[in-house]
């Protein structure tokens, strides 16, 4: 797969016009992480509603097109879902959401940073600890 396929219209659109970009005034979850390789940075905030549902979700960040588009698309996917759903989300789901681009080992972490932040925040809220096995496994 060529880079023309990685940087499809969809990714570029989310990179330049990120949905759910910004901060929440009231939130129950606030998580942030960086990818030291690229300097990618993502912070996500979530307001949890009745039945442990993701009532509102927003993110801010900076970095490459893949990291920013992936985080933005993930917030859209997560909105309205129950927190349990976040625990089920896998790296395969994220790749599928991005159109299964062939990212190569050095860029996979960019794609998965948003998911890492989302999971870290939700696991923390649920009183659990999230081990980032997905990202580091994918690196190899």
């Amino acid at each position, binding site marked *: 797969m060529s*880079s023309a396929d*990685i940087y499809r219209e969809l990714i*570029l659109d989310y990179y*330049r016009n990120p949905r759910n970009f910004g901060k929440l005034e009231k939130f129950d979850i606030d998580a942030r992480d960086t990818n030291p390789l*690229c*300097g990618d940075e993502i912070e996500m905030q979530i307001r949890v509603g009745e039945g442990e549902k993701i009532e509102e979700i927003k993110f801010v960040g900076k970095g*490459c097109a893949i990291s920013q588009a992936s985080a933005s698309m993930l917030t859209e996917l997560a909105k309205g879902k129950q927190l349990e759903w976040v625990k089920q989300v896998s790296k395969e789901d994220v790749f599928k959401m991005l159109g299964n681009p062939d990212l190569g080992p050095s860029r996979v972490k*960019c794609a998965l940073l948003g998911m890492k932040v989302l999971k870290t925040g939700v696991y923390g809220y649920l009183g659990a600890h999230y081990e980032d096995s997905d990202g580091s496994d994918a690196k190899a």
Partner: protein
Amino acid sequence: MLKTEVFDVEKVREDFPILKRQVHGKRLVYLDNAATTQKPKAVIDALVDYYSRYNSNVHRSVHTLGEEATAAYEAARGKAARFVGARAKELVFVRGTTEATNLVRYAWGEQNVKKGDILVTTLMEHHSNIVPWQLLAKSRGAKLKFVGLQPDGTLDMGSFENLLSEAPKLVAVTHCSNVLGTINDVVTICSRARSAGATTVVDGAQSVPHMPVDFGSIGCDFYAYSGHKMLGPTGIGALVGRKSLLEEMEPFQGGGEMIKEVFLDHSTWNDVPHKFEAGTVNIADAIGLGAAVDYLTSLGMDKEREHEIRLNDYALQTLQSIKGFHAYGPLDSGKKGGVISFNFADVHPHDLATILNEEGIAIRSGHHCAQPLMNWLDVEATSRASFHVYNSYDDVDALKAGLQKAGAIFKI
């Protein structure tokens, strides 16, 4: 092939086996030389020859192999020293520039820096010329201060003079910025710093591989460089120091080789430079560095400098015609090393590097281990193309075509 015509680049390229390789089915266009350079066959052969003919520990062996290895290791020290206008006894082999600055931080800094002292470095430094001084400041209760920059990416000498009036204990500065390419006037800086009573450290990681360097005329106390950025192996570099200063200093690491005599309650130290080379040294890579010095010397460092000035000229002229291209640092090729940091419209450097990689082009993207400088430039990251002996105008043209492809994909 378009050539800079300073020397025969086509012939030079034949000396580097790796340049025959293809990446994604394309000719390898290697423009990441500020990170590390490729190795000529002469360097690879020197390593193979050492391991297959006279591998042995040095200095303590009486047998033939040991004598040959010792002679080759010490000959390499002489070459590495002469290459920068220093004497063999002034040159300590280290892993690279990072280990060199850390050696100074421990062996000189812990003894000489006191509570309340001022240490000075600059905003354009690589982390290896910032973090050791932060650690030193923390352990000794000293204060680390930074020389600012002017808008064109050169040092603000006014801010430097202001800091000198605070009588700093140390001035640490890079000879050439690994991001902006700025070549600093280290002769003036060191002379001013020494009259203010400061000990001076110059980071030569980006200068020694690219231009003639003379330790004596720079007038610094310490000068550091890395072998792998100048066609040599990884894991070897040099700290050159004023001999009287090296003699006064405490050792860096303790162990074999660095001692003269060991008793139960104390030890005495070996002569300089061996006092700073504890344990079995990196014999093979030192010999490899010696071979790299021979190779560069045969091409001529003044010629290499001229070759890079022409590449800089051609690259700046070629790339600046592309819409969205923005270069950082001095734009006068005669005042900068062979490195161009840039951004391209709103394409993040890592996305650009991914697209270029598909064309067989290797560039660097990121913060280049210079986060304070990135903050000063007010960017998260930059892309960087950097040159060496085997680069040609063709490589610059390939980069231009790659940028145009990225422009098409990102619809710029």
